């Protein structure tokens, strides 16, 4: 089960929509796992961070005090797996008083009005 590979040949555009904080629920961690498998299957992978999902990319996460794994460094490693399309909604950052400098990785900041167009460009939406 470890070294799965997809033989179908077909490529679809997957959009991973991340709307939750890290740690409070398991979804942020699981989203990363699925993204990496999707990339290993040679699918076209984009990640969108909106609402509380933008907190997933916050620098300086230190979950040792709650005995959680610090998986935030994985976002930095995504590039190595050819996952390079990370979109963050500007309004979601602003409401939370966050700036791009607060984020762990380089992202493309888009206005909320562009989210629909982004969704429309994708074949499969996975919500985390």
């Amino acid at each position, binding site marked *: 089960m470890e070294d799965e590979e997809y033989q179908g040949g077909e490529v679809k555009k997957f959009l991973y*929509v991340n*709307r939750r904080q890290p740690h409070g629920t398991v979804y942020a961690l699981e989203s990363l796992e699925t993204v990496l498998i999707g990339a290993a299957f040679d699918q076209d992978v984009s990640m969108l961070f*909106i*609402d509380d999902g933008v907190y997933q990319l916050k620098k300086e996460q230190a979950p040792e005090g709650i005995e959680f794994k610090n998986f935030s460094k994985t976002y930095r490693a995504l590039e190595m797996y050819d996952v390079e399309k990370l979109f963050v909604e500007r309004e979601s950052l602003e409401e939370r008083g966050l700036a791009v400098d607060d984020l762990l990785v380089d992202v493309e900041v888009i206005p*909320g009005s562009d*989210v*629909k167009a982004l*969704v*429309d460009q*994708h*074949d*499969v*939406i996975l*919500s985390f």
Partner: protein
Amino acid sequence: MSTLNIVNKSPFEKRSLEQCLKRIGEGDSVLLIEDASVSALSKTAYAEQLISASKLSKFYVLKPDLQARGFSEESLLDSIESVDYDGFVNLVVTHDRVHSWL
């Protein structure tokens, strides 16, 4: 290119409905299921928001979820169409993709 958006939580409990409405536009549809079915009612504090959103997008509510909660189709906003599970399947098939706002 149209998207079927599914919302399943009450607007009184979670912000997922308003977060969905902010990101959709013309040609999109919204299906209200489970606890979100009450957002389709005409007399709640969220009715105005739904009326205004339904000028741009088409809204549906899952009837069995509405009935489970003690409401009939007479309590619905005019702009909202009620469907059963067969209608749910039909909506999935007639849109290009499905986006669940969990």
